[in-house]
């Protein structure tokens, strides 16, 4: 996104809307730090610029990646839905994506507030790839990898900045401890934050198996979260259940 300095009257209306603080107000015009801008469209949609000075320049590869993972209303071709994620546990009763004995892992890099560059996303993905995880193929972040076996990303996207990118995979419950240990280690080597989530099926007795692992490892989890209440149809049938 750019601001035309000839049109801008420095009213400052756009400045507060930028999620990564990339807009600064000078004496006679506002300016967008092009390297920090994530192409989320927030300023263009919400600032109600009185002189229409904000404009979208042509987005080409690799910069278009910023818009794909930052503008909420962009539809990802991999998932066919808007946003940065996938159906994950939201439709699990019909897809069976996370089955008994498995845990879904979602590592949302850059969330909240900081944003992320892909060199940090890559550090985390490579740490997880060493544990032989299989990244979710319908996730747009996976599509940006040059090698899904190593978690390496395409060279030309590494410095691209996005509001967040989600690394997503599922693992057998027995591997969850190693994944969490790996995430603890790599979290010390990144320049941003990630929000972490773990999904699993609820056992017939109401127990959530992943919570047992978290408690054993003394890892905090919030009292709130997401619950799929099982109303989707047709139901996926697990042979083992």
């Amino acid at each position, binding site marked *: 996104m750019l601001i035309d300095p000839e049109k801008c009257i420095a009213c400052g209306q756009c400045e507060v809307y930028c999620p990564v603080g990339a807009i600064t107000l000078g004496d006679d015009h506002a300016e967008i730090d092009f390297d920090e801008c994530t192409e989320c469209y927030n300023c263009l949609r919400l600032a109600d610029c009185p002189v229409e000075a904000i404009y979208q320049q042509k987005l080409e590869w690799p910069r278009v990646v910023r818009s794909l993972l930052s503008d909420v209303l962009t539809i990802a071709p991999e998932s066919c839905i808007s946003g940065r994620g996938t159906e994950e546990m939201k439709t699990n009763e019909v897809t069976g994506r*996370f089955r008994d004995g498995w845990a879904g892992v979602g590592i949302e890099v850059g969330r909240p507030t900081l944003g992320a560059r892909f060199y940090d996303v890559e550090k985390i993905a490579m740490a997880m790839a060493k544990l032989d995880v299989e990244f979710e193929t319908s996730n747009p972040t996976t599509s940006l990898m040059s090698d899904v076996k190593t978690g390496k990303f395409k060279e030309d996207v590494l410095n691209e900045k996005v509001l967040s990118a989600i690394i997503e995979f599922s693992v057998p419950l027995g591997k969850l401890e190693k994944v969490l240990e790996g995430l603890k280690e790599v979290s010390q080597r990144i320049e941003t934050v990630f929000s972490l989530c773990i999904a699993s099926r609820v056992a017939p007795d109401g127990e959530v198996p992943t919570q047992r692992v978290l408690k054993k490892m003394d890892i905090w989890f919030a009292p709130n979260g*997401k*619950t799929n209440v099982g109303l989707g149809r047709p139901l996926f049938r697990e042979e083992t259940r």
Partner: protein
Amino acid sequence: MTHTLHRLGEVGSLERDYVLLFMPSKDINHVDSGPKLRKMLEISLRCGAIKIGDCRHGNEYYQGGLDKLLDNVEDRAVVHAVFNDRDNVVEALKELKEADLGISVVVSGLFERVGECCREAGLAPHTVNNTLGRWGRTDLLPPRDVLEINTMCGHGMVSVKLIEDTAARVKSGELSPAEGAERLFKPCMCGIFNPSRAAELLRAMAGNLPDSKA
């Protein structure tokens, strides 16, 4: 994984914060899902939802009103309803179960309360998603009161500067907490931001307000 998760807050505040998400599954039940999704939103509004939203086309402000939002719901949309009362969530779940539309429903909120809601509606939780919080350079994050508001838009569109600017305007009396909360709702294109809870949080950030503005 995902925009309705990772909402930060004190338990007392989260007691008044629930998001219901309705989603068809690609190539399984997405065909002709648009009218069903619309019906789920209408049920939610009838049961006391304070906001509804659509990830595909944007919130009610962006689309120009609730009617337009409802008219524009398509197959494969992901739509939501925000509640600030657990009893209303129970009523919505009962009606959604009765309607039997075959579309997945996810409830975000305190697990203890959501479990109660499910039991009262005759439903059993199928899959849960736990948030393990924020890892890495947490020293770079804004203060907790700002984060509690910011994390109600999971795509991060409600900026720190907008929150701070709005809190300052509430504190000065330029905006009431409710007016400030509506201002903060607008960037949340999916419409999952809870303005009722945001008004409470803005009121707390502002400290003592004159009665006319509280």
